[in-house]
């Protein structure tokens, strides 16, 4: 199956803009299903972006982040063709990792 992580990282010289969309239910643990039973919490807790072995952005998330979460940020010090490593871990211990080339 394809990665759960979609990344677009584009460099405009000095800064690199990064957008990521991740496929994840992000169940908060406060919502009931159609049978009236609570859907247990299931959400990404940490999402880390690394460039050149260094953390450039860390997201700590709770169940209040939307389903299929999206985040956008920008950082300096990277150039076109560099690799960006993205990884997440959720509250059940599941993880996923991918790398993306900066365009």
């Amino acid at each position, binding site marked *: 199956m394809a990665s759960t992580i979609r990344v677009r990282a584009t460099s405009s010289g000095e*800064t690199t803009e990064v957008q990521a969309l991740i496929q994840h239910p*992000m169940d*908060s643990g*406060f919502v009931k299903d159609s049978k009236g039973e609570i859907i247990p919490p299931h959400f990404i*807790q*940490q999402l880390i972006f690394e460039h050149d072995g*260094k*953390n*450039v*952005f*860390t*997201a*700590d*998330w*709770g*169940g*209040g*982040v*939307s*389903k299929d*979460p*999206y*985040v*956008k*940020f*920008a*950082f*300096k*010090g990277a150039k076109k063709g560099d690799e960006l490593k993205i990884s997440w871990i959720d509250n059940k211990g599941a993880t996923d990792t991918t790398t993306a080339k900066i365009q």
Partner: protein
Amino acid sequence: MSTMANDFSATRRLILKGAGVLTLIGLGIVPLDVTKVLAAANDKYPEEAFKAKSEADAIKALYGKTPEPSDKVKMDAPEIAENGAVVPISVTTTLADVTSISFLVSENPVALVASYKIPAGTLPNVANRIKMARTSNVVVVVEAGGKLYGVSKEVKVTVGGCGG
């Protein structure tokens, strides 16, 4: 009485820390190491803050202090959320030495939604999509130079209907 004293000394300590960082920059000493150390110490997932029900408790668990208002933090949020399940919120700030940006929704069952660590070299601009249980204040807290700043905006949330 005693809590007041504690709060006061905590604030004082933090102001001092902030001033210290600023001094380092002023002297031309690379503040990178400082932020890096701070970041490393913060790398753990803030479990407690994400358990706090109220916005004040969450901020306290995260930062151990209370934010002051700032006109240097700009939050972009809709007046009326198209749907509480997906509310796009973004923030930019002209504050220097930003180390962390957090998003909270006062009326959510768990107030803290997301907290981002901003190492040196990363711009203090973040956009994300959050859930809102109902009409509420959305609070963005920015930690910069060891101080805490906050802005708040009400976003109306309505549900259901035959739109689309």
